[in-house]
């Protein structure tokens, strides 16, 4: 009940923000919503399957570059086509990468290596990718409309904001369903106890692989959404520090909560903006925050907010 009330209030606030908030803050919400989609997928791996991917920016990059290539090279401007194409491209890459990675855990879960391979590809294959300058991401059409008469800011804080919100809501509802499905339960058993899961017939590599591909598709959607506000994509989207940032967001919000990563994305974006405006060494502050979370609040912000009801255990 309390969750429903909070979600209703948050939904109303998200709908009202473009109407009441200054344009600057509305545009800050765009990366929040893009990262929100990314983190929903990342947390399927991290929070629900127990795999930490330090190379997930690979799939953000694939999503962003898919959008850039489609809009600039192929004239495909419809966001409704770009997003599925980004998901497909990410899934095609994730299938072999995941097949190689999912048998290993902890630091051996080698997505970082593949992320860096892709980063190097983007950097070095200049003619294809634009090298370190990247590629332009032309303004995508939304719901069949070019929104030609709208300035960039008006487009971003109007139709693009609500389109991103719709994608975030849809992604959230789908992920909500996934983690509460028989499939989601199998992922949790893998996270909790791999040996026991296998003894119950849960094929650990197979389920991890499924989760990895879904997670990659989510990251690609987020990447495509992320590219539009800046209008440009570059290799840093796939760089390992970007992967570190999204893992940080998950930790900040709390990976053991469904909504924790979304809260983490929100706080990260606005905290980064605030800290950067007053202190040039913002990474120092964020490092201290990360240390605080790891030591004092392993459940992240959601862990601090959530009040766990004590469970009565009958004793014989």
């Amino acid at each position, binding site marked *: 009940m309390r969750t429903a009330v909070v979600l209703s209030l948050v939904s109303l606030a998200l709908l009202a923000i473009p109407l009441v908030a200054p344009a600057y803050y509305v545009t800050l919400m765009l990366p929040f919503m893009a990262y929100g989609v990314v983190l929903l997928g990342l947390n399927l791996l991290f929070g629900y399957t127990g795999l930490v991917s330090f190379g997930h920016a690979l799939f953000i990059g694939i999503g962003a570059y898919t959008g850039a290539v489609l809009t600039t090279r192929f004239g495909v401007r419809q966001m409704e086509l770009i997003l599925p194409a980004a998901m497909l491209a990410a899934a095609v890459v994730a299938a072999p990468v995941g097949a190689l990675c999912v048998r290993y855990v902890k630091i051996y879960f080698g997505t970082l290596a593949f992320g860096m391979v892709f980063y190097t590809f983007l950097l070095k294959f200049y003619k294809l990718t634009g090298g370190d300058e990247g590629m332009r991401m032309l303004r995508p059409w939304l719901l069949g409309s070019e929104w030609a008469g709208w300035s960039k800011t008006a487009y971003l804080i109007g139709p693009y904001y609500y389109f991103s919100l719709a994608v975030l809501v849809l992604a959230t509802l789908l992920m909500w369903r996934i983690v509460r499905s*028989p*499939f989601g*339960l199998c992922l949790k058993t893998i996270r909790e106890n791999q*040996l026991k899961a296998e*003894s*119950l017939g849960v094929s650990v590599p197979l389920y991890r692989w*499924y989760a990895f591909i879904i997670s990659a598709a989510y990251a690609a959607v987020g990447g495509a959404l992320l590219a539009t506000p800046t209008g440009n994509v570059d290799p840093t989207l796939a760089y390992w520090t970007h992967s570190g940032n999204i893992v940080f967001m998950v930790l900040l919000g709390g990976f053991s909560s469904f909504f924790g990563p979304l809260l983490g994305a929100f706080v990260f974006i606005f905290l980064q903006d605030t800290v950067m405006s007053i202190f040039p060494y913002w990474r120092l502050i964020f490092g201290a925050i990360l240390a605080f979370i790891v030591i004092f609040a392993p459940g992240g912000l959601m862990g601090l907010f959530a009040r766990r009801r004590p*469970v009565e255990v009958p004793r014989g």
Partner: protein
Amino acid sequence: MILEARDVRKLYGPYVALDGVSLSIREGEFVSVIGPNGAGKSTLINVLTGLLAPSAGTVRFKDRDIGGIGMVALTRLGMARSFQLVQIFPELTVLESLQAAVVSRLGGGARIFASLAGDHRIQKDALEIATLFNLADKAHVLARELPQGDKKLLDVASAFALRPEIILLDEPTSGVSTADKHAIMEILVGAAKRIGLRAIIQVEHDMDIVFGYSDRIIALHQGKVLADAAPAQIEADAQVMDMVVGRRHPSSAPQPPGAPHPALSPEGRGNADPSPPPGERAG
């Protein structure tokens, strides 16, 4: 013959853990594997359940070679197991833990968008097993918050939730208080009858449990089968008792060869109602 091992050897480098072990498990049997530490009991269970591939020899289940095929494949063939150390899903509730086994049995794990809560068959089957194992009142308790005896029960119950044909239990009462041991065994035997289990193999150190519940005892010593006989015959064999049990066990009543299997036969020991007497289970 449900399960058969022939001349199984298992080597860990130069160390011979199993040395030409042969055994067969028949319909309706409750077989205990005993032996001192290092005799190869857990290795045998791990080889029989596909967790380890034998270095030589064959293991056949339902006339199919299952050597090293892995636990997941064996589960689908109808074999389940529990472990010596309690294996649970600490942050899942009792019901979720059992649901996971039911999902696996029904082959529905890949249903990505299906509602777990809305699947009545999964809910019903999981609750039925929880009831069989006296865990229904703790269905929504996290596994890590259960008392040790209930954790052990949950571990075994989740294997039963697979509704296997044969189950291999590695010390099903280890780490459990003496007061809880017989209660767990009574529940286990009652549940086995209820779900129509065809055979049980257990590794056990507690000789009260071994002699009290087994149709047949296989004694291992230094990786070899020292004896394979009914409890009464084992008890009458001074050499086996000295080498494997370390003492003469007083509690076992002699049984004639070919007597009905007490654990799994309908007329045997244990009530169909798996509930232990009130107060028998300590927290």
